[in-house]
């Protein structure tokens, strides 16, 4: 059972820093979809907190700026928005695909992209997708009553299992992602009941073509190592190469040593390789991508334009 004395909901960054500079003993929350199930028998048990600060309504954490090069997503953006927003569906195709695999509609209404990143779970689904979008995060901190904002690549921000580059009352404010309009995208994850499953392996990929050659390939993997990571050798191998199943197969073997998991290594290795192949093929618009996506789709018609269209 989670118990606390005070639940604060600041509305601006200024309010947030004013509050957290006064109260020292506090826990920062956003969607609360992790902390409530955690504070139960067998996990956190009975948890007592003095103060809880809910950052999900801070104005700066709810920005949504859609540019032709960059898109700014507030850290409190929830996964259901990623799933439903028409602009995101067109130009950031990988995000609605992650969302389909991210819990269920009801949990997606609460769960935030910032919370998912700050938790820094090796199995977090958001991270691989944001890695492929070359995400830069903004961290706000307070010094002498001044709010200082610092931008850094997502790779630098997440430092390890449950470790991120936040000190004291620093706050993750937003994520700046590349507009990848024209890219084919895919997210793959192992699991039976999509509403619940925690990734054993997940792969996110983005592919851009130039005629019949790979112009840009980005692949990231989660669930198999301390921190989700891009597959540099696979990406490098494919860039500039012609679209050929043999090339894709050859590339799929290059980064399998990324797996650090202690359990089910062989299984994960096999799944990872299959996922790399499948996600690239699907990003290319092959293998009935539309059919698969449409099955998951339940609201707005998702037009999965393949990369070469």
């Amino acid at each position, binding site marked *: 059972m989670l118990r606390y004395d005070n639940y604060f909901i600041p509305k601006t960054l200024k309010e947030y820093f004013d509050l957290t500079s006064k109260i020292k003993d506090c826990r920062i929350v956003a969607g609360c979809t992790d902390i409530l199930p955690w504070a139960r028998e067998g996990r956190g048990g009975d948890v007592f907190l003095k103060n809880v600060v809910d950052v999900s309504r801070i104005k700066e954490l709810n920005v949504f700026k859609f540019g032709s090069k960059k898109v700014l997503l507030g850290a409190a953006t929830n996964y259901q928005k990623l799933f439903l927003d028409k602009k995101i569906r067109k130009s950031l195709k990988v995000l609605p695909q992650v969302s389909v695999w991210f819990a269920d509609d009801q949990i997606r209404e609460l769960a935030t992209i910032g919370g998912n990143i700050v938790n820094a779970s090796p199995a977090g689904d958001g991270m691989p997708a944001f890695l492929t979008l070359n995400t830069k995060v903004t961290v706000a901190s307070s010094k002498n009553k001044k709010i200082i904002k610092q931008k850094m690549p997502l790779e630098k921000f997440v430092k390890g299992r449950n470790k991120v580059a936040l000190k004291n009352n620093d706050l993750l404010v937003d994520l700046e992602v590349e507009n990848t309009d024209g890219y084919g995208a895919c997210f793959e994850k192992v699991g039976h009941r999509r509403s619940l499953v925690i990734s054993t392996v997940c792969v996110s990929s983005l592919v851009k073509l130039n005629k019949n050659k790979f112009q840009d390939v980005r692949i990231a993997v989660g669930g198999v190592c301390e921190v989700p990571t891009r597959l540099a050798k696979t990406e490098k191998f494919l860039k500039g190469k012609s679209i050929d199943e043999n090339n894709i197969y050859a590339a799929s073997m290059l980064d399998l040593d990324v797996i650090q998991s202690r359990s089910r290594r062989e299984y994960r290795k096999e799944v990872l390789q299959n996922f790399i192949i499948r996600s690239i093929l699907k990003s290319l618009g092959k293998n009935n991508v539309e059919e698969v996506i449409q099955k998951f789709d*339940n609201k707005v018609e998702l037009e999965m334009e393949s990369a070469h269209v």
Partner: protein
Amino acid sequence: MSNMELNLTVNGKKIKKTTQSHYRLLDFLREDLDLTGTKEGCGAGECGTCSVFINGKLVKSCLVPAAKADGAKIETVEGMGNPEKMSEIQKAFCATGASQCGFCIPGMVMAATSTLRNNPKANLEQIKEEMGGNICRCTGYQKIFDAVEMARDVINKEKSEKVFDEYEKPANSFIGANVKRIDAPSKVTGRLKYAADMKMPNMLHMQVLRSDRPHAKILSIDLSKAKKIEGVRGIVTSDDVPGIDNFGVFIEDQPVLAKDKVRYVGEAIVAVAADTLEQAKDAVNAIKIKYKDLPALYDPEEALKEKILIHEHYKTNLVKHIPIRKGNTEEAFKKADLIIEDEFSTQPVEHAYLEPMAGVSYVDQDGVLTIVSPSQNITHHRHMMAKIMNLPIHKVRFIMSPVGGGFGGKEDMIYQGMLALLATKTRQPIKYVMTREEDIVSTAKRHPSRTKYKMGLNKDGKIVAAEISMLADGGAYGCSTEGVMRKAAILGAGPYNIENLKMDTRGVYTNNTPSGAFRSFGALQTEFATESMLDIAAEKLNMDPFEIRRINAFVKGNLTHTKQELNSASINTVLNELEKLASWEKGSPQSRGNSRKDTFSKDNRDACELGARLKTNGNGKRVAR
């Protein structure tokens, strides 16, 4: 404990209320507003029994701190309709019989409402996708999906409202007739009160300290700190039991609270009643227990060696051995054309009813101890309770609250004894609601089993003899083990006429979670072995699996395994019907595909034989590809 004020709109009503700061929206709705249609099935966002709308978005209210709902518009199942004026979705749930135990149904109604609000033309796949966050244990979902599709069609004017009322008047029998379920409106509107939904004046909340050891002697229980906690009104241990302290469905071997030693992880040791749930939890956390660990038994084979005894005074770990002897198997095996031997095992299974165990107890104005709980066995519980509490039978009353799914899991009197002790001690009503985790760790499971099987058959598929020996893990207490062993023995050889049968089922004590009643009650474990053996035999004898069963099936006049003469037998009727429904392709198991018309075509695989891909060569012979 601090408070906060909430201002919000709930089902159209403006509410201003002071509540506990740490409450979840679920707690606020249930405890402060008595809107108990919103249920708690898991408390971890997995089951969807607590789904409500916040500002039009469906969420799981167990994952929402109440403070987040300040200023919001909330809609709960109570706002969707009432039994006299139901929404189309609620009417459709009644019409298709979608509400069985009813515990998941308010959440399902909310999820269905959200689905059709977001997408009024949702097709079946979209309905399944959007309702994916809600689970049901009874229906298998078909009736729920039927209901949502029916409601959608009525809302879209594609079907008349008359479909909600197409019930049949049963002629001679209710079987096969689509009759109106009387309790459906109360379930689909969230009005039916389950035990956890009940409240009484001056009611106390009970919490339980449970063992974290599989097998240990209790050296001391220190209650001094717990007693000092504000709001604590009563603490009970095994010492507080006034009568004969044991219960069980068949063998009464389980104390209300652990006596001298604990026998499994999750066994109750101390129960506390306090003004609030939080105070009761604090008191439980303040209790100190000193244990001396004992060597533990986890393997039923080891249990038979009896180097460690779970219940010393029985001088054995054997709970029950049921032997059945019919004919002479030894002689019959000598004449068999085929003898097959194999071993089968099954695992423990949790019932996973959506309503966690819950109950309310009180001593009424006439001194009658009353227990309200979703018990599947109240008469037996009443008799056991009278003995435990040392009361005449007319001073004990059991009231069965609506059972939010049982599947056999609510046959044991696992927590009612603690409720009785505390109601008697404090003379205040007591309420207890298990968390999902507590329920899984402390309640009985399906018996895990190992079955050794030897079957002898004639060339024509007739079983001439069978020797079956099952060993089941009964866990720490007897519960239903004896009955489960009986059923496993009586039914395990299946509905087949076997003239020579040697059947033994044994249930033993271990330090595992107790095993108890579960749908099919033991027959599943042994029949699984029997049916598997028949499939293996069919393959070895090159026979059709249906045919080998027909040859052996009971007919009128046969003697059952326990030598009762049958006046009728319906297994062949069932087999014929099944064969038809399954579009069964005749033939032995190793020849699947030969007579199917859809094979050998351009887009289909060829038939497989013994795992090899075959083709017909120029001479009409089947050869490997």
